Every structure is written in C-alpha cells, then in structure tokens.
C-alpha cells in the first residue's frame, strides 16, 4: 500500500514469516532502496509471562520465566531468582554464587555464539562462520547438560542457591573445552573479523551515537558498542563477579561492526571468568533451605543478560506465589532503538538485516 505518492514510498511488511526476521514483523517504509521508517509490530509472540507467574510458586515460576530469552536461560533465570531473594532478604552461600557465575557465563557464550552466527549470515551468502558457531555451541551445551541435566532450559537456580553441586570431572572437561574454544576464536577472528567484505557491509552502518543510545534506552552490547561503559556485572557486583577480575568490552564507533566486536570480546572475557571461577571454587553448601512462603516485601534485581540489562521488580504478599512481577526486557528497548534508527542514520533495504541482527533482539523477550 503506497504511503505517499510524492516520494513513491511503499510499505513493505518484513516478517513474521521472512527468512531473516525471525518471528517478528517490521513494517518498512521505503522507496526501494532508502528506508525511511522501521515500525516494529509487537505482540506476535506475547504469552503473558507476567500473568502466568502469578499462578506459580517461586521454584515453579523459574521454568516459564526462562523462556523469555531461552537462548540465554541462565542469566534470565538469575534475574527472577535474585529479585525474589532481594525481596525476601535471602543470603546465598558462597559456593552457590560461584556455580551460578559459571553457568551464567556458559549461557552468555552460548547466546553470543548464536548472535554472531546470525549476524554473519545476515550479511548475505552462507558464510562458514554461521555453522562453525553452531558446531562450537555443542560443546558448551554439553557442558551445561553435564552440570544441570538440560542443554537449554536449565531451571537450575532456585531462591537460596542452585539445585545440584558440580559433578566430578566437570572442571577438567570445562578447562579443555575453554582452551579448544580459544583456538576457535582465533579462527573466527582470522576468517571474519578482518574479512574485507564484512567490513564494507558493517562499518559505518546503523551508527548510534553515545547520547542517542543513552536517551533512547539501548541495552547491553548495543549500548557498549556506542562507547557507553555500563555493565551490570560491574555496577551491581552480584554473585561472584566482585572477586573475579574481567574487563568490560566497549567500542566507540557505535556501528554494526562495533556491536559485533563487543560480543566477540565479551566471549573472551567470559572464558577468563569461567577459568577463574573454576580455579578458586570455595567449599561449603550449594543451597540454603528456604521456606515455601516468603514474607511480604518488594525486590528489584538487575542482571546483565547477553542481550543487555534485564530488570525484574517482584512484589511479595506473604503467600508462596508472587503478587506481581514486572520485567523490563532488554530486547524491548533494543527494538525501540531500531525503530528510531532510520531517523539517525541512512539505512538501505540491504542493510536492514545487518542492522537488526547487530542489535541481536530476542523477540519473545520483547513481547513477554
């Protein structure tokens, strides 16, 4: 349907059934090449998680909550669990904090590998890196399965600690996987990061300045790609991140290449974190018994998921089910930034997949 005869702008619907859009619909107003407007159409995968949680006890609630951003299940599950612990004032034993950090970083590497594979494939053709990342994710899925029993939806964190201790043989296996993964990262860098045609496709495309990123509310790698250093692991110092030293990956240009590079560097940091956490894993209990009914209270947790900062606001009313759970999802804000991007920089139709996948939105996270 033509929007304005003068500039012959036509309105193309991008998704939800589109090779590169995932299960989300963008409406593009374009004249064939230049894109003037990207309108995200929310609600296609809305499941009403916030209502479902009011009908489930705390431990049961973690299972649907993780399905908000399933590819990064550990960090998302951690947000809900920390919100409950913050509301009820539960202290988590040291060893549980370290095990949580290890699983969170494994899940972060999983999610970033997934994002890097798709970002590379969004630029066109079928580059090998798209399948290398899938092949290398298998090792981390096996690691998570060894620790928790499931490859994707771990449901491993419960208020007061974790559900099981680290099995023996996990540490050696993890260290071997990490050293193999670091060699693979070198192969990624050689074959893709300096790839001439990828650089021409992604450098300077979808540029987001620092104050725009802050004003519009970008989250996670999209924010750090524009030079704003905000990482919840350093701000909130939750779990074991206080004792482990790691750098926050920040890039200044703010274009697709910078966001891609931030995810790449964050994977390197994650391997360091897992190594340190495995080396000085404290002894002691991995779980503290928590009564099913938690006292009245209000809790707020902010966790750095792979897609950005997820904030969960939980209100308890003394029963064994939460009274209200409010989730501020990072992908919701990233999608909002994508919709404002055509006003900030020039975007062509061929750039739309590269730009969208450089923000790595997870649509179920945005639709809640």
């Amino acid at each position, binding site marked *: 349907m033509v929007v304005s005869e003068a500039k012959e702008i036509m309105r193309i619907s991008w998704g939800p059934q589109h090779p590169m859009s995932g299960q989300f619909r963008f409406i593009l107003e374009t004249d064939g090449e230049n894109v003037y407007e990207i309108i995200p159409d929310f609600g296609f995968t809305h499941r009403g998680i916030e209502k479902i949680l009011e009908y489930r006890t705390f431990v049961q609630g973690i299972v649907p909550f993780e399905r908000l951003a399933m590819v990064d299940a550990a960090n998302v599950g951690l947000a809900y669990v920390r919100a409950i612990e913050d509301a009820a004032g539960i202290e988590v034993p040291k060893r549980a904090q370290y095990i949580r950090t290890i699983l969170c970083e494994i899940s972060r590497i999983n999610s970033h590998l997934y994002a890097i594979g798709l970002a590379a494939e969004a630029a066109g053709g079928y580059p090998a890196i798209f399948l290398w990342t899938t092949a290398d994710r298998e090792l981390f899925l096996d690691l998570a399965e060894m620790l928790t029993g499931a490859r994707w939806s771990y449901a491993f964190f419960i208020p007061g600690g974790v559900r099981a201790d680290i099995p023996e043989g996990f540490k050696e296996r993890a260290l071997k996987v990490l050293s193999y993964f670091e060699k693979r990262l070198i192969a990624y860098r050689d074959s893709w990061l300096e790839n001439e045609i990828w650089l021409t496709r992604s450098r300077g495309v979808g540029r987001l300045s620092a104050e725009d990123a802050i004003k519009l*509310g970008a989250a996670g790698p999209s924010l750090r790609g524009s030079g704003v250093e905000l990482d919840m692991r350093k701000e909130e110092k939750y779990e074991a991140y206080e004792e482990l030293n790691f750098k926050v990956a920040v890039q200044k240009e703010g274009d697709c290449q910078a966001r891609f590079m931030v995810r790449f560097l964050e994977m390197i940091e994650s391997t360091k974190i897992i190594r340190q956490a495995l080396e000085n894993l404290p002894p002691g209990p991995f779980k503290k018994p928590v009564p099913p009914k938690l006292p009245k209270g209000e809790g707020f947790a902010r966790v750095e998921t792979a897609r950005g900062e997820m904030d969960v606001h939980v209100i308890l009313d003394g029963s064994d089910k939460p009274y209200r759970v409010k989730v501020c999802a990072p992908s919701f804000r990233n999608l909002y930034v994508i919709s404002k991007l055509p006003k900030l920089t020039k975007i062509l139709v061929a750039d739309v997949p590269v730009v969208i996948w450089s923000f790595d939105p997870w649509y179920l996270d945005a639709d809640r």
Partner: protein
Amino acid sequence: MSEEEVIKAISENFGELVVESKVLRPKKVSITVKPEGLVSIATFLRDSLGFDHPLGAGAIDYPAENKIQMVYYIWSMNRRMLIMLRADTPRDNPRLPTLSSVWDQMNLHEREAWEMFGIVFEGHPRLEHLLLPEDWEEGVYPLRKDYKLPER
C-alpha cells in the same frame, strides 16, 4: 550526589507533590508522586538531576486499596543511580498524564499499561494495543487481579 541529596533536591522543589520517598537499596530510590506533579517532576529529574536512561515502566494493581500504581524505572548514567517514579490512581477510573514527551520510550510502556490495566494516559499520541491482538474486547484488562487465568 548520593540518594539523600536527590530526595532532598526533589522535596525542596516539589514539596507537597511528593507523597512518599525512600531509599530502597543502595543506589535505588523510590518516589511516590501525586499524578498532577508527574510531568513536572519527570522533566526536573531528566534535565537537572541527569536521569536520562529510561529502563521501562509498568503498573501494579492493588484491588484491596482500590488503586493502581504506575512505576517508571529511570537510570542516571553519570550518577549511576536508579529511581522508581511511582504515581497512584483510583482503580475505577485510572487517569494519568503521559510521560512520552519527557522520555520518548515511555510511549510504548504506557500503551502496554493502558491495554493491560486500563490506565488512560492524557496527551498520549497513539493509545493503541501493543501486545494484545486488535480484536481484544474492550474493558477486559488481563493483568488486573480480577481477570482469572483459565486454570488448566
């Protein structure tokens, strides 16, 4: 400027409009405001106190006290502090001024609060359904406590 200074700065400029303000956690401040003063306090927060990074907004339904509370979560980048701006409205006819002029992103969050709780935001450019399908019948607000989920 730590948490107390922020609260003091707000109470000085808008003394009577602030219903209640307390420090929830280190670096997290919660301020409950009368609906009339919402927009002025929000612009004050954004311009002079530097709360420029909006995180989200949501509403909470209290049928016992017959009120719906709207909460705005804003983060200040240079202060490294979070503020929860709250406003209460009566449950039977919830009306609130819109903050989409202050933080552009609130436009979407207010649309969601409108379709889930029924809060009418005056001055909102486009109050339409965000997450629910277009043919969702009027007057039914799913996130309210009286909307029962069909139990499996």
